[in-house]
C-alpha cells in the first residue's frame, strides 16, 4: 500500500498533534504537525497537502483564517476543523467557507481517520 494522503495537522495543544500524527501515520498517511498557525501557513505556502486538520481557536491566525487561506491558495485541499468551542456562528462561517467537516472535541480517533480518508479522496478528485 502506498501513501494514503498528505496531511497537515495544526493544534496549539501538543497532545492533539502527537496523538493524531501517531494514529494517522499508523494508517499510512504522511503527516506534518504544527502547534503554531503562522508556521503552518508558511508550510502551506511551500507545498500542497490533501487534507488540513486544524483547531479553531489559536493564537495568531484561527482555524477559519486557515480555511480561507487554503480556499484561496491551495486548490482541492480539504479542511477539517476540530474544536472544543463549536458556536453556531463559527460553524456557519466554516460551512460557508467550504469546510469538509466540523468535528467537536473530544473525538474518537477512528472517526477522524475515516474523515481524513474521505477528505483525501475528495481532494485528489478535485485536483485532477
Amino acid at each position, binding site marked *: *500500500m502506498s501513501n494514503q494522503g498528505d496531511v497537515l495537522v495544526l*493544534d496549539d*495543544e*501538543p*497532545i*492533539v498533534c*502527537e*496523538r*493524531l500524527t*501517531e494514529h494517522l*501515520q*499508523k*494508517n*499510512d498517511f504522511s503527516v506534518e504537525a504544527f502547534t503554531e498557525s503562522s508556521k503552518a501557513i508558511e508550510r502551506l505556502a511551500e507545498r500542497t497537502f490533501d487534507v488540513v486538520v486544524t483547531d479553531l481557536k489559536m493564537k495568531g491566525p484561527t482555524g477559519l483564517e486557515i480555511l480561507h487561506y487554503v480556499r484561496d491558495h491551495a486548490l482541492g485541499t480539504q479542511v477539517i476543523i476540530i474544536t*472544543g*468551542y463549536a458556536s453556531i456562528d463559527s460553524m456557519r462561517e466554516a460551512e460557508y467557507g467550504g469546510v469538509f467537516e466540523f468535528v467537536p*472535541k*473530544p*473525538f*474518537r*480517533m*477512528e472517526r*477522524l481517520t475515516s474523515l481524513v480518508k474521505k477528505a483525501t479522496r475528495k481532494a485528489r478528485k478535485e485536483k485532477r
Partner: protein
Amino acid sequence: MSLLTRILRRLTPHDHSAVIRERLESFKALLRGNNRILELMAEAGEMLGGEYVFDTQYLRSLAADLEKAMHEVVYNLQIITGEHHAELLNKVQTIAAEIRAAIDSRLVVPKADLVIPLDRVNLDMAEVVGDKMARLGEVRERLGCRVPDGFVVSAYACRQFLESAGIDPTTAENPPETLRELRRRVENAELPKELTREIRKGLKELERKGGISTLAVRSSALGEDGQTSFAGLYETVLGVAPEDALAAYKQVVASLYSDHVVVYRRRCGLPPTQGLMPVGFLKMIPAHAGGVAYSLDPARPESDIVLVSASRGLGKTVVEGTAPVDTFELSRQPPYSVVERRIADKETAYTSGPQGGLRQTPIPHSERRSPAITDQQLAEVAAATLMIERYMKRAQDIEWALDREGRLHIVQVRPLAIPESEPPGGRMLREAASRYPVLLAGQGVVACRGIGYGRVHVVDDRSPADPPPQAVLVARTPTPRLAASLAEASAVITDIGTATGHLAAIAREMRVPAIVDVGDATRLLEEGQEVTVDAEENVVYRGKVDELLRFHLTQRFSFEERLEYRLLRSLLHRIAPLHLVEPESPAFTATNCSTYHDIIRFAHEVAVRELITGSWLRAPRTGSAIRRLLLDIPIDLVLIDLGDGLWETQDPRKAQVENVRCAPLRALLEGLLSEGAWATDPADMDPNGFMASATRGGALTRPLAARPEQNLAILSLEYLHLNLKLGYHFNIIDCYLADERNHNYIYFRFAGGVTEITRRSRRAVVLRKILESFDFITEGTGDLVIGRIKKISRNEMVDRLRMIGRLIGFTRQLDILLRDDALVEHSVKRFLKQVYDETAGKSAWGKR
C-alpha cells in the same frame, strides 16, 4: 419551562400542592444534577481508554460542568430538606478549587500524608509518590516481587518544604533567582518540624522491621521516566546512614534545580523550574551482585532476548557504566537459557560501608574473571523482568540486586526507552498481521486500547472461579465476576456491554485491552484457542501475532503517560471513588464525604429519606385530587393527581384501575396485575428443591404485605412519581412517558430489606442484572440499586414499565429466598422467562 413546571401549572389552585410542587421539582433537579455528574464521570473514564483525543480545554470544561452540576445538587438538597448544608457546599468548593488549580498550574499535588510506607504504595498513587516509587510499590504489593522495605516522602510534603523555604514550585517562567541560589536555599532550609518528625518516624519503623544499616535515597520526580525521560538526571544518594537521611532528602530535592535538569526541561518545552520531587527512602541491600535487566534488546527489539548486565557488589557500576561489567543475553522463553555471554575483567566492586557512604573494594585476582551471577540466578532475573513486563504491558528496564543469601531484590522499575527509529507504519504491521486468520474485525467497541495475547477462556456460570493467568477472557455479559478476574487477564471481550460500563472502567484502570458489545464473540471464539487481540484496530487474530505484540511493547511512550491523561486520571481520583457505601452506617455523614461521588450519594440519600418520611407528604391526604386506588392485591396506594392523571371517578375518595389515565401508571399496573406477578410461590424459586426448608421458616418467608398509608403515587397524564414501601423495601420510580422520546425517562431506585446484608446484596445483583438486560444503566452499593434509562420510544417505555410492575411483585420476597449465590442467576432467568412468556410475540422485547 421545565417539564414538571408544565405539569404543575395545570394544578387547581385549591390543591394542597404548593409544597409537593416545590419539593418534587427540587428532587427532580437533584436527580438531574446527580445523573449529569454520573454521566460526566463515565464519559471522563471513557476518555482514559485512549480511543479519544482530548486536550486541556476538555479538562477545563469537564471541571466546570461538574462544578455546576454539584452546586445544583447541593442547592436543591437545601430546598428539599429546608436545611443549610454548609459543610457539603464547602466540600464542593474545596474540591472544585483543587481541580482548577491542578489544571491551571499543570501541577498535580493531591493532599496526602507527608510520609507513606512503601507497602501502602501502588501505581494509582503516581501523583503522590512519583512514578518510580509508585511502580516499585506496585510490583511489590500486587506482583509480590521482593522489594526492599522503605517509605516515600510525598509530593505534598515537598511542596510544604519548598514553600517554607520561600520557593513557589508553580513558578514556571524566568526563575527570579539563579539556579545556584535555588539549590542553596533548598540545601540550607530547615525542614518543617512536622516533616522532620514524620521522616524520623518512618526511619524508626524501618529500624523496627529488621534494622537498617544504610539507605538508598532516590528521586521519584513526577513525570520522571514518563513522556520525557529524566533517567539519571535527578539525584540518587546511596549508602546513606540514617542520621544523614534529612540532609540526603534536601540534596535530592535540590536536584530539581540542577543545571542539566533545567536545560533538559527547556529542551522538552517544559517550564524549567516547575515541579515537585517525591523522594523514596529504601533499605540498602548488602548486595553480593547487582545490575540491570532489559526485557528486550532496544537495538534489536525483534530478537527474542532479555539483556542482563551484572557487576560484583552494588549495581552502581552498571548504572554508571564506569567500569567493565558482565553482559548476558537470555532467551525470552522459559527456561530462559543464556544464549550469549561476555564476562568482563572486573577489578573493583562498590559496597556500602557500615557507617554509610560507598566504598570501592578490589576484587581478588582469582575471582575477577568469573561471572558475577550464576545461570540459575540469571534465569530468575529474566523471569522477574518478563513478569513485570507482562504486568506493565511495556518493555521494562529493571535494576536488581542479589543479597548475600543469593535472593533477588528489585530496586528500580521503569519503562524501557527504545531509541526512536522509523515508526513501523500501519502497512508493515498490517502486512505481518495479514498472515494470520482474522476471527473478529470491526465488531463491537474498543473500551481500552492495547494488544493482548493468550488463550481464550470463556467465562460463564459454569466456569471455575479463577481463570488461568494471561487468558483472553470472553464472556456474554460484563458480570462483576468477570471484572474480578481482570487483573490477571491479557485481554477481555464481551458480547454485550458499553464503553462506559463498570467492566470497561475496570479494564481501563488495570489497562487490560478490552472490546465490548461484539455480539457473538462467545460463539466465534473457542475455549483454549490462541488469539491475539488488537484493541488498537479492533481485530482479533488466531494465533500469536509477534509483530503486533512487539510493536506494542516497544512503543516509545503510550498515551496514558502524557500529561493530559495523568491530569485526567488524578482529577478522577478526586471525583469518582465512592467511600460512603452503607447509608445505615454511622460513618454516612457529610463530614466523611471526600469526593464528588460521595457528595452526590450522600445528598441523594438524604433527599430520598426526606421524600419518603417527610411531613410534607402527609399534609395533603385529603382534598379533591386525592384518591385511594382499589386493587386486588394488598398494596394500599394513595394517588395524588396533578392533573389529567385520572378520569372522573364516581367515588370522590376512591379510584378503580379503569379510572387511571396516567400512561406510565397504566403500563406499570398492567405488569403488576398480570398473572403470577404478585403471588409468587416461593418454592418455585428453588431449582433443586432444597428451598423447601426455607419456606417452612416462618413469618419471614410469607409474602410481605404492604402497610397502609405507605405507598404514594403522584401523577399526571404523562408523569408518575411512585413511592413504595413494601415490607421493608423502599422503592421509588420516577418517570415520564409521552410521544416525544427525548423527554422520556425512567428512574428506578430500590433499597432496604429485612434479611442480612449478603442476601440483600444478592438481591441487588439480581435487580441490576434484570435492569441491565433491559438496557438500564445501573449503579449501587451494598443493597442499593439505582437504574436509569432515557430517550426511548413510547413503546419501549411501556414495555419497561410493565416489566417494572412485574419486578415490584417479584422482588418482594427475593432477598429472603436468595440463600445462595447459585440462586442469583436462576432468579434472573426465571424472571426474564416470565416476562418473555407474558409478552412473546406481543412486543419488541418478546425477542429476548
